[in-house]
């Protein structure tokens, strides 16, 4: 029997009870004639041949040598270089003033308190150096995705704005992006050589800025190898327990030490909720990818893969065994860092961007013994692999209403903003004026009290040079550990299916994913059996999943899979 039959009967009864029966019956006749709502717009992606014509040339910067250079790994991915100290004699990469006195409105997200723009000497310093008036208008990063749709709807876009990839979902970006300027005529191929600092941006980062066969974006905060995250552990606790982290190579090994690391009476649990960071361990596509092409060439969703089921089962087993912190199982994700810092969770998952000196400072404040480390890549089958995220996931765009001269001025400004770490321009863009906003202490720039009130990440969200591993004075070891982990990780870097293709799914499938997210949570927290997941999957397939597969098959046939 169809489980939905009962629901429908209830519904009819309910409508009759409330006097809406007539409406239900009249409505069904009218409705039968209507088709499903579909919205226009293509998949937004671009095939490889087209890419070759659009992508700018790559001329790496050679003026500076990092203390720990990047390591070239598999598939052309490179680990991030490390400067342990700011170079003593910064180089100058831009001659003259880039701007021509133009005035531009901007909008960038900011995750932090927004500084006053009135009499802000940092903005004044940078604008003077740029020779243009960039009106910086940072907006709350947490609510950024709610600010964007009205801006597009009202056609009130600023001249230059940043949009992170995770805020594009509800914009129908393949349509939205047409409001911005096509930068191809100015940057494609050798044209970019007019802007040497932009030419030093690696090709993979440019690739993630292309929609509908056109180069629209300027990448910010990209790297040569972006992992979706890592599994972290408390090195100090491992040492105390006498566990050698290098002996942990698989989920089974993790399970093997869980009991030893769990002591509820002392308020310590082995695991946090790191399920979202397990995709590479079980080899199914993790976010932002959901689709993959299997060995037989068939397009499959992650939810259909036996690997995903295996991961769900594994995590549910740990949850049921009581190895996962109860607050993590209560969905208190936002307190996860605090639990890890204070040692309530010994093993957790997080983005690699969280492995910083600032994190160590917070951790030491909670527990003076705090040392964070990441496992070398685990794998359930002994074959470690790390699918790479798109090189950049934040991009800035120039308004399509700008004239060619204005676009050229903005690109010259971008060339200044993209000056590499170790240049005088980088110091100005990131720290403002020496003596006023920052001073040099032990070889590193440090914000003054005035600077810490005025300097915020704003210009950096318009475009950046390749980002080195950040080093906080006094925490050099963190940067060294991170560099060593990444150098090992890039050996196993892979290009997942649909890598860096900027695909926009048709809007009518937007609601397909939520029930799967919900049920997979239920199963891995041990609230529902695996059969509930399989039931939901069947519904997913019939209510649009198979149609969406067809969409991805078309993308694959027409545009390839980004390999």
């Amino acid at each position, binding site marked *: 029997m169809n489980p939905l039959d009962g629901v429908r009967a209830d*519904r009819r009864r309910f409508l009759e009870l409330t006097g809406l029966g007539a409406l239900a019956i009249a409505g069904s006749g009218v409705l039968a004639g209507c088709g*499903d709502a579909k919205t226009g717009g293509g998949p937004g992606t671009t095939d490889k041949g087209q890419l070759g014509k659009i992508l700018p040339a790559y001329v790496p910067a050679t003026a500076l040598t990092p203390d720990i250079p990047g390591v070239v790994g598999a598939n052309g991915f490179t680990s991030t270089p490390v400067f342990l100290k700011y170079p003593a004699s910064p180089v100058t990469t831009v001659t003259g003033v880039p701007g021509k006195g133009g005035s531009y409105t901007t909008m960038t997200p900011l995750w932090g308190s927004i500084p006053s723009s009135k009499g802000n000497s940092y903005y004044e310093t940078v604008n003077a150096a740029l020779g243009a008036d960039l009106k910086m208008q940072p907006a709350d990063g947490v609510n950024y995705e709610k600010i964007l749709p009205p801006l597009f709807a009202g056609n009130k876009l600023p001249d230059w704005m940043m949009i992170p990839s995770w805020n594009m*979902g509800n914009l*129908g970006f393949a349509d939205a992006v047409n409001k911005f300027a096509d930068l191809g005529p100015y940057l494609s191929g050798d044209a970019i050589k007019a802007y040497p600092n932009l030419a030093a941006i690696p090709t993979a980062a440019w690739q993630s800025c292309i929609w509908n066969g056109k180069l629209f974006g300027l990448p910010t905060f990209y790297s040569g190898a972006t992992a979706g995250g890592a599994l972290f552990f408390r090195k100090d606790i491992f040492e105390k327990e006498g566990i050698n982290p290098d002996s942990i190579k698989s989920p089974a090994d993790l399970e093997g030490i869980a009991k030893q690391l769990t002591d509820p009476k002392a*308020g310590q649990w082995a695991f946090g909720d790191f399920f979202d960071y397990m995709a590479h361990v079980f080899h199914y596509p993790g976010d932002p990818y959901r689709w993959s092409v299997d060995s037989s060439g068939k397009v499959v969703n992650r939810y259909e893969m036996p690997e995903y089921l295996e991961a769900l089962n594994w995590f549910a087993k740990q949850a049921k065994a009581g190895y996962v912190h*109860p607050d993590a*199982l*209560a969905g208190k994700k936002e307190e996860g860092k605090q639990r890890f810092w204070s040692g309530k969770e010994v093993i957790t998952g997080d983005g690699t961007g969280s492995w910083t000196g600032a994190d160590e400072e917070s951790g030491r404040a909670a527990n003076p013994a705090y040392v964070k480390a990441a496992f070398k890549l685990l794998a359930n089958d002994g074959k470690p692999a790390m699918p790479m995220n798109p090189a950049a996931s934040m991009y800035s765009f120039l308004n399509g209403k700008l004239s060619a001269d204005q676009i050229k001025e903005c690109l010259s400004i971008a060339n200044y903003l993209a000056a590499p770490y170790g240049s005088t321009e980088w110091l100005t863009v990131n720290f403002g004026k020496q003596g006023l906003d920052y001073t040099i202490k032990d070889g590193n720039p440090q914000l003054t009290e005035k600077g810490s009130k005025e300097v915020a990440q704003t210009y950096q969200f318009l475009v950046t040079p390749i980002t080195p591993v950040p080093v906080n004075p006094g925490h050099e070891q963190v940067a060294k550990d991170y560099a060593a982990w990444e150098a090992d990780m890039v050996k196993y870097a892979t290009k997942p299916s649909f890598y860096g293709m900027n695909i926009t799914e048709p809007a009518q499938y937007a609601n397909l994913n939520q029930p799967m997210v919900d049920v997979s949570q239920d199963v891995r927290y041990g609230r529902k059996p695996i059969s509930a997941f399989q039931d939901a999957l069947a519904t997913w397939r019939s209510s649009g999943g198979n149609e969406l597969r067809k969409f991805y098959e078309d993308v694959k046939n027409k545009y390839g899979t980004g390999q």
Partner: protein
Amino acid sequence: MTALHEAPPTASARPSRAEARTLKKADRRRRFLRDRALVVMTLPAIALVLVFNYAPMFGTATAFQTYSIYAGFWHSPWSGLDTFRRLFGDPLFWSAFENTLTLSLVQLVLFFPVPILLAILLNSVLSTKVRTFVQSVVYLPHFFSWVLAITIFQQMLGGAGALNQFLRSHDLGTWDIMTNPDTFKLLVTAQVVWKEAGWGIIVFLAALAAIDQQLFEAAAVDGAGRWRRLWHITLPGIRGIVVLMLVLQLGNVLTVGFEQMLIQRLAVGRDASEVLDTYAYYYGVVNANFSIGAAASLFKGLLSLILILTANKVAHLFGEDGLYRR
């Protein structure tokens, strides 16, 4: 009309319908002139209601469109009742609807009487010091946000909270309160009681204060005990307010704590925590399917209106004032 003029002289004391109309008109004019200062004072409030309550109602047009943010209200294509067909065809919507109704019912039975009981209890405390103190303590949680309230619950009753750590340290096993979907409705109600019951007593305390004290004294002289006085004086004295609050509550039956559900969704899962408001949020706002969100909200608004009018009618049938005097 002529029939009225031929009416017997006894009835002529009552004005004719035409006369009544002119009288009423004059009366209305007189009343307006008398109350004009008060009328002017209400204008800002009326403007607020128009701007923030009535103007946004045009947004419900999206429920009948295939709404796209790029096209806006004016250019999005009309889709008739298609959105509603999709909405009513979605079993997840009906499970959210069912959750909303059961949760409302549970809260009506378990939450609604609590402020009344508390108010009567407090009213019987003679020491003003004790009364003010207790009142302040029970008011306080109302001013906490739901995030804070639920964090406090998690810290106290959660799997690693004070209670369970105490049970653990005495080897008494643990008690799963915060992540048990089966008892979630009771948990949610308990949270509402903790947070809002104190605030809810204000209106009942005012009603209690309005009861003539002489009635109690007279009853006491006649030998009525504590319970008799409660039954025959206190409860009838606040009946009107209780009915009014109940009618208002029924209008809100389909609004059961959006934030509370959103925050605890991961803890107990979708099945237990999805209500109409969170459904509209996840399937309407988060995924930019604004038409579906608008349709779900419109459906909810319509039902609420029907409920509140029905409840009001019932109140009138029982001779109470309800929302307004007839």
